[in-house]
């Protein structure tokens, strides 16, 4: 755990109009780690990632990428500095070809040779995208579009990658496949990842460290292994419950972190 901190967020606050969606979040991501953020629907995970990547402007707080403040910068400047956001629900460019979608991920770069090398690297992880290069991206299957969104993000040569629910809407088999690739990218390419997931089981499997978010706040933080072993996490995110699967009982059960 002595790796340097690449992403450091302190006391971050974000609003949608009058609604406070992020209520003072602080967290750290270290070099080479996969850090996951778990949380129920509406907890503010997507909002947090949007605020980090500059698509939303925070109201308060600081964000540092390699000790350099990046909060309040425009989104394109942040990509240029090495932080990319792979959004929830894919968000590809439907009428551009698969190849054009991948290559536009390198929009902020000019090093042609390195871009070509990275394209090969990306195709190596996602061969299907090379195969479907000429096809309109909108005609890809959901899983392929998710791969495309990750591939596009990689093309910016990120130091830190924010991933918002890459498992959303995918079959269990495909979830395994994508997470295997993410783990490989982390190990082989050294991409540091901040991973938001509903699927706590797979997320905690690949992650080194985890945060739990509830209504705009971080309520728990620990090593992924310890989180996976925690009773609360088991009950509320892993679906393991001594009281059985009845929703009412689970609702009544009190979480220790409150």
């Amino acid at each position, binding site marked *: 755990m002595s790796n340097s901190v690449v992403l450091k967020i302190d006391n971050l606050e974000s609003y949608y109009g009058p609604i406070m969606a992020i209520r003072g979040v602080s967290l750290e991501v270290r070099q080479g780690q996969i850090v996951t953020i778990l949380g129920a629907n509406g907890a503010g995970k997507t909002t947090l990632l949007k605020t980090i*990547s*500059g*698509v939303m402007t925070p109201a308060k707080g600081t964000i540092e990428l390699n000790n350099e403040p990046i909060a309040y910068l*425009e*989104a*394109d400047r*942040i*990509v*240029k500095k090495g932080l*990319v*956001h*792979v*959004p929830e629900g894919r*968000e*590809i*460019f*439907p*009428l*551009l070809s698969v190849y*054009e979608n991948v290559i*536009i*991920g390198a*929009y*902020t770069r000019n090093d042609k040779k390195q871009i070509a090398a990275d394209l090969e690297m990306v195709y190596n992880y996602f061969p299907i995208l090379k195969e479907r290069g000429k096809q309109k991206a*909108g005609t890809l299957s959901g899983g392929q579009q998710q791969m495309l969104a990750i591939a*596009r*993000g990689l093309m*910016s040569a990120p130091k830190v990658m924010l991933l918002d629910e890459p498992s959303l809407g995918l079959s269990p088999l495909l979830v395994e496949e994508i997470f295997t690739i993410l783990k490989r990218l982390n190990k082989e390419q050294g991409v540091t990842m901040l991973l938001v997931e509903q699927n706590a089981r797979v997320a905690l499997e690949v992650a080194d460290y985890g945060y739990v978010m509830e209504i705009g706040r971080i309520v728990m933080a620990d090593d992924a292994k310890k989180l996976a072993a925690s009773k609360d996490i088991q009950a509320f995110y892993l679906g393991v419950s001594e009281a059985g699967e009845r929703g009412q009982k689970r609702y009544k059960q009190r979480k220790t972190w409150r």
Partner: protein
Amino acid sequence: MDFWQLAISGLANGSVYGLIALGFVLIYKATEAVNFAQGDFMMMGAFITIWLTNEQYLGFSFWLAIPLAILIMALLGYLLDVVVIRRMFGQPQIAVIILTIALGFIIRFAAGAIWSHEPQLLETPFAGREVHFGGLVLGFEEVAVIIVTLLLTMFLFLFFKKAKLGKAMQAASQNQLAAYYVGIPVKRIQSLVWALGGSVAAVAGILFASKGAVDPSTGLLGIKAFAAAVIGGFGSLPGALIGGLIIGLIEPFAAYGLPAGYSQVAPYALMLLVLIFRPAGLFSQMHKKKV
């Protein structure tokens, strides 16, 4: 009158409609705003060129006046976005529409005040020349208008297909949020699209004024161009051009074959028919816009 001569003059008119329609579509696709002043932009581009090159005004060389006028209109388009339109972000679309309609009035008024309401013709080096083509005698200007329009459309097509900036414009129009995520400076790109809209309008104005007189109310033919854009599907660049050409072609033949009064409504009647039977336009790209 000879069929081919009617057709050529119709195509030449249609080219101008098509270029204005192109401006509508460009700006709409990239920013979801409809610039109802696009026709008045065209008129303004024409007057700026007249002002730069006609003996009566500055008298610059024609070949200097053209790029200058295009540049000035590009700058005006860019500034319009930066200073006004961008600030209306988050307002309902109708607000931008009303704003551009008002802008059209202002441009018309200003043009009248500066250059008077007299119809004026652009002085070109090839006024009055003719082109002989297989027994046909055609006005040089009309042929030039068609050729320049085709070249410009081809250039735009290649620009969107090949250039990095063109790709970024396409991307920003297909999925604005995703464009932010990949690091495209969306706001700057949108201003550049307005600049492109301004320069295309300038070209349309130059072409229009070289084959017929302009006056400050000429921009009102933007309504026909709007019909052309609707016919073309309001999302497709070639569709806009073809829509313009169709309207340009219908006009002279309707005037030839139909009683006066009916012929003027022919373009709008066609637009209605298209809207009823193919609401997405003749050349729509099937996709849902996100964000």
